[in-house]
């Protein structure tokens, strides 16, 4: 019941928002309360073991069921932690924008739907919520209303629907060969002798390609940089944390809990995704280097970093999955800080491109520090969190050995180098003296609080992340 409430509450409250004609202050209060309440419900669900909740039975094989297992708890915790911050940020960011009510309505609804993905007990439920997520985030992407925004939204829609079609094929394979879609640690086929391995692998590959649209793997990454035209709270949360991490989460679920590592290990169903993700790692960084628009640069950086996670997951080992999960959490934190900071630069300093941030380090000191810190973390400078996950990924890859994992390690290092360049250049440019002084409106407290708190979390995790890593390792071992 808690699970259903956690999903239904934000969706219902979000849908009802236009009904109550609230003034801005009351509306913000309403939204924040809804978000915090949902996060509290999630916290409760994580702390306490809740049995599965079957919502709808289509037939005895196909049901819509909610359950929060270890893997789901990780994603749920991440989303539940970050959404209130994003909401607080969005209040200040969207202050003078148009169509605020519809924006916040869909923003809140997306929260519930993302939680639905985290709380899915089987692939069908995940698929349903996945589709609904596309629909609830579409108006957010198109919010700007300009031609560009609409085109970006349509591109997002087409890509997502195409991906879902492929994913559906995988779902069908699973039902046919496995008899059910439930997520079982180790996969449905663990310990069972198989006759249809080849077909299963094909089904998995199609499923991987389908979900890899949201996870932005080359060649299906095209929607993400274009979607950077959306308002910053959307890009930050949805496209750095919720939507894209849903894709990654779905792939992890399908790999470890549906098809299982035993079916996939050592076959083309592992090698092709490994090759694609390795390529995407370098590709994303190279494109980010070339890109001068700040948000699009960060979008390409996301493309690259998501493939780090998938690379770790596709190693099909406990260490690989642990490393991937570490990067899932750490990257979400680092990226959201970067996007939020860039959002403030867009709004308050009218700086959209790299050369426009000149001098902003001195006029907006807190933002400069926060941006530089997250840039250093992303590059993988020890002892910050980015280094910890990168080291774990490389270690896991070297443990497996073989040509593809080794190429992955090289790709990681090249990517770290390129990340250093494309993130440190804006960071340093910020501190160079501008040709003329910047006239700026002061930065609101809401922005500062959000960014400062998240940076402190980054620092805290850099100093002490052992319990988290142990928990992830246990989850990963269980998933094998």
């Amino acid at each position: 019941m808690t699970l259903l409430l956690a999903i239904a509450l934000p969706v219902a409250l979000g849908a009802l928002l236009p009904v109550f004609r609230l003034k801005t202050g009351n509306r913000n209060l309403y939204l924040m309360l809804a978000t915090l309440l949902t996060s509290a419900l999630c916290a409760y669900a994580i702390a306490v073991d809740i049995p599965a909740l079957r919502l709808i039975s289509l037939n005895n094989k196909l049901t819509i069921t909610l359950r929060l297992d270890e893997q789901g708890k990780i994603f749920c915790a991440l989303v539940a932690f970050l959404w209130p911050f994003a909401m607080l940020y969005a209040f200040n960011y969207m202050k003078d924008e148009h169509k605020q009510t519809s924006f916040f309505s869909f923003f809140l609804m997306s929260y519930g739907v993302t939680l639905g993905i985290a709380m899915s007990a089987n692939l069908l439920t995940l698929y349903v919520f996945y589709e609904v997520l596309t629909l609830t985030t579409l108006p957010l992407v198109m919010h700007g209303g300009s031609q560009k925004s609409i085109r970006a939204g349509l591109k997002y829609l087409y890509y997502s629907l195409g991906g879902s079609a492929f994913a559906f094929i995988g779902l069908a394979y699973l039902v046919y060969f496995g008899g059910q879609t439930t997520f079982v640690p180790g996969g449905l086929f663990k310990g069972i002798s198989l006759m249809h391995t080849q077909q299963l692998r094909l089904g998995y590959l199609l499923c991987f390609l389908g979900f890899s649209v949201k996870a932005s793997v080359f060649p299906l990454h095209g929607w993400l940089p274009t979607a950077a035209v959306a308002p910053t709270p959307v890009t930050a949360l949805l496209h750095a944390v919720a939507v894209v991490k849903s894709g990654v989460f779905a792939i992890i679920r399908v790999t470890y809990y549906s098809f299982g590592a035993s079916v996939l290990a050592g076959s083309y169903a592992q090698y092709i995704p490994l090759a694609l993700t390795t390529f995407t790692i370098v590709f994303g960084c190279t494109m980010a280097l070339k890109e001068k628009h700040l948000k699009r640069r960060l979008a390409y950086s996301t493309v690259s970093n998501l493939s780090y996670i998938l690379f770790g997951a596709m190693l099909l080992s406990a260490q690989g999955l642990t490393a991937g999960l570490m990067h899932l959490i750490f990257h979400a934190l680092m990226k959201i800080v970067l996007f939020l900071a860039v959002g403030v630069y867009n709004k308050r300093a009218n700086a959209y491109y790299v050369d426009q941030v000149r001098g902003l380090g001195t006029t907006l000191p807190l933002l400069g520090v926060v941006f530089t810190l997250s840039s250093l973390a992303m590059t993988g400078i020890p002892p910050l969190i980015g280094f910890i996950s990168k080291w774990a990924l490389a270690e896991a890859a070297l443990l497996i050995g073989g040509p593809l994992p080794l190429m992955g390690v090289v790709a990681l290092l090249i990517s770290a180098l390129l990340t250093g360049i494309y993130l440190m250049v804006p960071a340093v440019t910020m501190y160079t003296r501008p040709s003329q002084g910047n006239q700026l409106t002061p930065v609101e407290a809401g922005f500062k609080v959000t960014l400062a708190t998240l940076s402190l979390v980054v620092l805290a995790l850099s100093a002490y992340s052992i319990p988290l890593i142990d928990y992830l390792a246990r989850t990963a071992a269980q998933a094998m």
Partner: protein
Amino acid sequence: MNWMLPVMVFLPFAAALPAFLLGRRKGAASLQLMIGANLLVFALALALFLNTKGTASFAIPGFVGLGLNLTADGFRSLYALVAAFMWLMTSLFSPQYFEHGHALGRYSLFSLFTLGATLGVFLSDDLLTAFVFFEILSFTSYVWVIHEQTPQAMRAGQTYLAIAILGGMTMLMGLMMLYQRVGSLRFEALAQAAPTLGHDTLMLPGLLILAGFGAKAGMYPLHVWLPKAHPVAPAPASALLSGILTKVGVYGILVISTRLFFDDTVWGTLLLVLGLVNMVLGAVLALFSIDLKRTLACSSMSQIGFILFGVGCQALLGEHNALAAQGTVLHMLNHSLIKLVLFMAAGVVYLNTHSLNLNEIRGYGRRKPGLMLIFLTGAASISALPFFSGYASKTLLHEAIVEYFVHLLDLGHSALLYQAAEWLFVITGGLTFCYMIKLFVAIFVERHPSRQTSYDRMGRSMSPLSATALGLSALVLFALGLHPEGWLTSLATRSLPFLHAHEPAHAVHFLAWVNLSGGLKSLLLGVLLYPLARKWLMVRDEGGQLVYVNRWPAWLDLEDRLYRPLVSFLVRTGTLLCTPLDLIMDRFVFPAVSNSLTFISRVLESLVDGVSLLLMRTMLKPRYEKATLVPHGNRLTYALGRTADVLTGLIRRFFGMQPRGPYHYVRLYALIWDTAQDTMRRILRTLSFGLILFALGLVALLALLLLR
């Protein structure tokens, strides 16, 4: 678990933020806080240095992956002390140097961070801890380089950062490979695993790690940042960059040399050659330069070459490397102290003359005995004059290489390379003396053509605090050198366990003729070279004055000639390849797919249309009859029409109206009937009607089935 170690490392980090915040109000206050913190750290380091009978350790397991391991043995506690001492001295010099400075809070913040990280490296016990702190200090020292924020400083900073990141990533690759092969990165584990793993497995990771640490040490070919970054940084920071941060790189190289490649000829020769390149190149560039700090920076490069030379000799000599080990350690120590003194002296000169160009500062030091003595201590030591500390370390290194090629000759092998190395060693010693003479003469002997009187009239060049700092540093340097068999040898001996070296078989007599002659050879060469150098490096200008000519070979700049074009080439090629790939789905695949699908759909649609067209032309062809002007109607319509006509005629006649006409309604009803007939016929002949009937039939069938 000795808590002094983490306190030493983390205290500067803790003091950094208060220093920065203080600096926002008043810059000088942050410098004072920095002095205080440095004093505290120095006290701790001194206590550690004096107390270490065995080794002290500290560990935080699981920190940043593999855990933080700190250990202090003889060498590490020595170098921690040296680092703390140098930081203290430069921070005492800072108030005068930065009297009119800016961003002092930022300077203090990053200085303290760098101190903490440096101590972290020097006290580390495994390569990952060293790497973590190494990366931290690479980034925090960048702020030193860009402190003045001039265009040259920014560009030098760019180079510095790029090499730091590149070196760091290369080193990380090497570390990962090493970790995979050995299973641990702790120093003892490396030493134990090395004999079993063998040279071939370890060479690649070793080279990668060498690249990383070597970049920081200023090893050729990654030295490009040194001559640019050291001059643009403020003088106290230059002293630290040159004196200590390069030694951080050397520390790493020492670690892997002594543990992975202890008795390895290939590695030893490699380092020897690299050291020689550094030595000679640095000395030549120093001779050419007319910027005071750039000369000193190139001199650093040269001395690092000597140190690498020593590391190479250690690896070559294997078990018998006591002399080489001692030489390396002592030369590291000496060079740190020498550069401390020399850079601070350069800072004093800059403070008062606002220039570093030899042509402008010449003669500044003429009436300043204090400054002259201080500078002389440093210069004499670096030139390896007897009774100065540099002499001891260079002698040891000289002995090491001689020992090696004698050993080779005894075995009957050719030792040409190593004999040549010894010659280059001697020649470089001469060059060193030569450029030091050049500097000394320029600053303290020559007369400035125009500004001499103003220079002579200048008051005290150093504030009391600065004078203390410089004087103390020079004194330490001088005291160490007076009796090399005393303090210097004991310092060298306490460092030997770290280098896995044994005590020397016999004590070294530094003033024995065999050693003295080697040193004097270099000095003689330098003295003879000086007049030639002067001839070549000075020309007469318009006023008939001799001026120094800048013979700096800018065309040889490796960075501008090779590295920058290479990097931009790689980036451009990469983006050239990736950009079309980015668009491949949007511009090619999707349009192709959608166009082909559209085509197929259109074909199928026209097929369907064709079927219905066929039907319309054949079976359902409408037969159009000529429209008759006169409607026909039938008997019913005629009967109804006639009735209606008669009735309306009667009614109209009753009311006295004109009659309408006998066939009015007949015609009307006939028209209606004909139209209806026509429409019905048209409808009945359409495809849609056929389909409706078909559907109705199906429905009827269904109803029939269901109702049964």
